[in-house]
């Protein structure tokens, strides 16, 4: 069974600090996705990681993928209040049936 686990589930941090969110998954997949969701809103795509060693950066966020360890990280550099949101990772696989599995999400609160 494909499982996607994120940690931490909740993260409260001060502005200007750095932190990393971890996403572990349980089956072979070369594709991992990161999304952002603001309270009461829809999901917005942040990153698509398509191969082992992939690294992508956008502003203060950087995502990486290690398919051998089945691990992706989302690193936050010098956090600002606008980054407060819930972050989801997701993995997809196909073996007869298509599966697109989301992690439970990490709720990030950046304190001014």
């Amino acid at each position, binding site marked *: 069974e494909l499982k996607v686990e994120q940690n931490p589930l909740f993260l409260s941090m001060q502005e200007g600090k750095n932190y990393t969110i971890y996403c572990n998954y349980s089956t072979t997949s070369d*594709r991992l*996705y990161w999304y952002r969701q603001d309270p009461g809103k*829809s*999901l917005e*795509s942040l990153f698509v990681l398509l191969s082992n060693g992939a690294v992508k950066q956008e502003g203060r966020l950087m995502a990486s993928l290690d398919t051998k360890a089945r691990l992706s990280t989302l690193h936050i550099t010098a956090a600002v209040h606008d980054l407060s949101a819930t972050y989801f990772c997701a993995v997809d696989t196909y073996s007869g049936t298509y599966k697109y599995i*989301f992690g439970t999400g990490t709720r990030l609160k950046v304190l001014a």
Partner: protein
Amino acid sequence: NAGVTQTPKFRVLKTGQSMTLLCAQDMNHEYMYWYRQDPGMGLRLIHYSVGEGTTAKGEVPDGYNVSRLKKQNFLLGLESAAPSQTSVYFCASSYPTSGATQETQYFGPGTRLLVL
């Protein structure tokens, strides 16, 4: 270019009633998906479609039916609503590039459904 839209935004049903949620996209995407999101949980895939006239079951399909008669529309039906189907429903679409190696999904604004 409206992206992905969902109708209605909010609905209250009584147990046993039926309803249809409509998802429409104007990006000419091949793939469309229906998810539900419950408090404290990630999204769970209900059904999906890889093209007009095709549908397939996802992770939690029981109690739901879908249809994709037109490429731009994906309908989610609840034949006999149950309180356990109280949730926020999101529709999404994607257009895989060659070899289906890039499947960023574009999400609609969501439909909040309350079943009493």
